[in-house]
């Protein structure tokens, strides 16, 4: 009877670990796939930049605009509703730059790739320990904290990058009625998610101590 009870518990535990095991496998495939594709892509881009005789390279960047009031508006077909004034817009700017700037763009892309791979690697190692049934380890607490820090730093970095690009574009392009939005605006909700992840890391660290106590209770 006892053996049956424990056997059932073990089977239930194995079933419970199926999802983390699957996630660990998927993350492994995604990480190695992304690392390979990005690595090869970066090398190809670097080689093309090095051997290309073209004096310019093309860039296509996301941009945000502030429109002068009244410059653009939407007319309503309904007489009861007035026209809508467009004040902000998002879009993409495609242009060519001297080839030398291509190396700067490539370096930025390389940093982004390394950053994403780093976060995915932490998730990969984390999911592997969950799949193994031992998530309460000091290493995992550090990993979760690193992910939280990465989310905050990543969002701040994204905002700085957008702001820098907007400033650069504003210095080089102009159009009547349209101004490039150059406000430094990290998304508060993403920063909050980072803080929540760091809080969960602290809970995991405490959980690790409890696990240690449990393991050393004979």
């Amino acid at each position, binding site marked *: 009877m006892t053996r049956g009870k424990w056997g059932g518990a073990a089977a239930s535990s194995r079933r419970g670990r199926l999802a983390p095991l699957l996630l660990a496998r998927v993350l492994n495939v995604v990480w190695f796939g992304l690392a390979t594709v990005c690595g090869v892509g970066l090398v190809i881009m670097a080689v093309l930049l090095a051997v290309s005789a073209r004096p310019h390279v093309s860039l296509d960047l996301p941009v945000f605009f502030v429109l002068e009031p009244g410059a653009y508006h939407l007319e309503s077909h309904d007489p009861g509703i007035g026209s809508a004034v467009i004040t902000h817009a998002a879009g993409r700017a495609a242009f060519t730059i001297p080839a030398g700037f291509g190396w700067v763009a490539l370096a930025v892309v390389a940093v982004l790739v390394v950053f994403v791979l780093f976060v995915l690697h932490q998730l990969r190692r984390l999911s592997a320990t969950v799949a193994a049934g031992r998530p309460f380890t000091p290493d995992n607490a550090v990993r979760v904290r690193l992910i939280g820090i990465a989310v905050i730093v990543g969002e701040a970095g994204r905002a700085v990058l957008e702001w820098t690009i907007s400033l650069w574009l504003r210095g080089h392009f102009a159009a009547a009625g349209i101004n490039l939005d150059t406000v430094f605006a990290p998304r508060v909700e993403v920063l909050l998610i980072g803080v929540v992840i760091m809080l969960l890391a602290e809970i995991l660290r405490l959980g690790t101590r409890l696990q240690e106590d449990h393991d050393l209770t*004979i």
Partner: protein
Amino acid sequence: MAITVHLDRLLAERGLTLTELADRVGMTLANLSILKTNKARAIRFSTLTALCRELDCQPGDLLGYVPESHEVAEH
């Protein structure tokens, strides 16, 4: 470590090995080793009962208290 486990002395007095004791009390050698090397954080009454039964001793024979200052002085 304020609380010490005198498993070494009791085993020697009774001519037992750690492996034999582990078999008798139904514990793993790894857990008994943690206890012997004073690395355990806590001990269950059930473990204490099994050890006292097999070693034919009282909990007081198995456990001792060393004030922290003495421990530092000894080191």
